[in-house]
């Protein structure tokens, strides 16, 4: 399934993503932020599809949108947000922070403009049909050790989260 109408979808999706991102960092209510983030993530999953990365897209949907975000929503609902909505939303260093971030953005633009020509004009062809199988081969072959380490990390994270969040252990 080759991507169709690439520019249109790219601009549409990046628009959605950017608007979603802006909403994430500006909304008072964290639930709205979370929903905006979900929209962003889903749009990004679509962009992955455009980049011939269907497996990553699927993982993005099932893990991010389905898993992590549900976790976020859960936590938001568990902790009372009534108070924090009524309070100041930005901290005292927000001006400095935005200046620093803008400076970083400016530098990024400078870097992109300066290094525009370093990327090849034409991308190399990729076979989408075998994407999942190839990823599996890589993941369970070359990256076996990293894969195991990642699962260990997840285990530690599970235990850590339980220890942290449980009232009495």
């Amino acid at each position: 399934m080759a991507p169709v109408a690439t520019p249109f979808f790219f601009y549409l999706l990046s628009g959605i993503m950017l608007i979603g991102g802006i909403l994430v960092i500006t909304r008072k209510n964290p639930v709205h932020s979370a929903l905006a983030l979900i929209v962003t993530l889903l749009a990004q999953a679509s962009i992955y599809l455009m980049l011939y990365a269907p497996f990553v897209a699927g993982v993005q949907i099932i893990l991010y949108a389905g898993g992590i975000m549900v976790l976020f929503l859960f936590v938001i609902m568990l902790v009372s947000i009534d108070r924090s909505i009524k309070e100041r939303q930005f901290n005292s260093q927000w001006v400095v922070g935005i200046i620093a971030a803008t400076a970083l953005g400016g530098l990024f633009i400078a870097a992109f403009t300066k290094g525009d020509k370093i990327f090849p004009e034409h991308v190399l062809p990729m076979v989408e049909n075998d994407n999942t199988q190839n990823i599996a081969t890589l993941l369970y072959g070359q990256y076996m050790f990293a894969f195991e380490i990642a699962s260990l990390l997840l285990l530690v994270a599970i235990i850590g989260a339980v220890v942290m969040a449980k009232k009495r252990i």
Partner: protein
Amino acid sequence: MFLTHIWLIPLLPAVGAAVMFFFGRRLQKATVSAVCVGSIVLAFILACGAVWQYSAWSSTSDNFHKPYQTILCTWLGSDTGHLNYRTQDGSPAPLQADVGFLLDPLSSIWLLFVTGVGMLIHIYSTGYMAHEGGYYRFFGYLNLFMFSMLTLILANNYVLLFVGWEGVGLCSYLLIGFYFHRKSASDAAAKAFIVNRIGDAGFLLGMFFIAWYFGSLRFIEVTHIAHSGRFSIGDPIITAATLLLFVGACGKSAQLPLYIWLPDAMEGPTPVSALIHAATMVTAGVYMVARSNALFVLAPTSMKTVAIVGALTAIFAASIGLVQNDIKRVLAYSTVSQLGYMFLALGVGAFAAGVFHVFTHAFFKALLFLGAGSVIHSMSGEQDMRNMGDLGHRIPITHRTMFIATLAIAGIFPFAGFFSKDAILWETWSREGGAYRFLWYVGYATALMTAFYMFRLMYLTFHGRPRMSHEAEHHIHESPMSMTVPLIVLALCAVGTGWLGWPHSLGGSDRFTKFLEPVFAGEARVLQEEGRTSQLVAGVEEQHNSSTEWLLMALSLAAAGLGWGMAWRSYRHADKGYTEPIAAAVPPVYDVLLHKYYVDEGYDYVFTGRRKLGNVRLGVLGLGTASAWFDTHVVDGAVNAAGWITRLTGTISSWWDKWIIDGIGVNGPATLARILSYPARLFEWGLVQWYALVMTAGLVGFVFYYVYR
């Protein structure tokens, strides 16, 4: 076979008790009876077999008159000699107590009557307790008691004896408090337990003395050492040890001044009173003293003490018994009195006579109690003799059996009591010295009183006019077979057991004394060497005193007759509101007797402190009050003073610490460091977003460097 497996005898009741303890709640009454009574019957059969085998064994030439001892295992300490202690002469001795059994004539007698009377009382209880709650509990306790008592009897050392001793104490406590929902019963149980503890303390100390002095606690070894002549007569340590042992015996056998628990113990069910507080357990003290006879003969002072205490207890309790109205209390005081007789016998060195009295007393006193139980049963729980009367023809079996027992206890020829009591009085009389003669007078007076109060009991209960309420009268009925058959058997024993000790003076052979001879032979020798007596217990024929003996017999028969006559005269026609002869003659004496010489009240004033003497509280509670006062005012005062001083110095110290040490010494450099370190602090602000900002700034610099380098 019976001898080698003698351990089965105490084990059987233990199994019965265990079964009751674990499964009793779920068992039928019939099963409970079968298990408990069956175990005792089996134990009795085994006991008979064991004694029969022992008599055959001990008459062989190698084992002539030797005690039979079998040791199962070492229970306390070790048999490897690793747990040694030093005796008084510095030699090491193993700390060792076995689970071992000793059978000799003395324990044979106890074994026989404990299992025999126990069996009869078990059978009796199946009828008596048939309609009571806690049936299995009762029989479990009874079996446990039998186990403890048999352990006590068959023990081969003081420690195991003490185990049985405490076991019977526990069972006594449990059974007195059987009706634990009644406060008086639970109080009586506690009283019995506590008073026994006092005695047990003495027993324990005595036991320690023996262990320290003799280096062993086995009866055979202790007796052997005592006979070896290593210790002189009147040895102070042995005197102390025996006196302490006697304190224990006083507690268990209800002698002055520790007798007070026994009358209250009548709160328990009547079979319990019969078994524990008349026939068996209370004679444990006698058993223990008789068992320690080798020691006692080495301590004449102790012997005298025993004799005096026994005689005083005898007359003291008998005098109280004269006026009591509760049928079981009369019997209880009678028991105390008879126990006094036994100790009198022991004290004058007539061990065989004392044991003989224990033996006969077990039967007729058990019979009396069981009869009383039967009366109470027929009277629907009424115990006050003032509300009885004229029961004779309504419960004839009870009446007749009790009458036989009364004749026996009063000492009428030829019933059992006559022989045993007479033996005691004769031994006392024949001991030289005015003090002993005085003791004889006391015993003689006691015999008179005994006859009087026993026949008073008979007349008030079975003769005279009916004084009970109408509906109680309506319910009077003879007890069931399970209760009357033991009565009849016991009555036969009350008649016949005395003949075992038919004295030589009356042409008999005194087989009882002869049977016991191996146990007390050594003592007789000691006493003889001491030269205090010319007549000896051990069946030495003394022809020239026969006339004196006959005279004494006649005198005691006359006393019994006199008592009977007085009772007949006073109570023959007792109707409602009859007058007590003593009350009529000397009212103050009657009052004192009725209030048991105010001993309980006196104890309350002096020992427990339940009553105040004026404003002062004496006794245990008084000691507690005094201790509390001392603690509050002196100890706590000292503590508070110490605390106050500490606080004062602490305040000063803290001021110094706060303003001088902390203010100048500690905070000064810290403040200086804080002022100087402010610039460095900016990078570690402590807020996570500040770190992020610093990071971003660093990133900006980084990217800047790479873009514009």
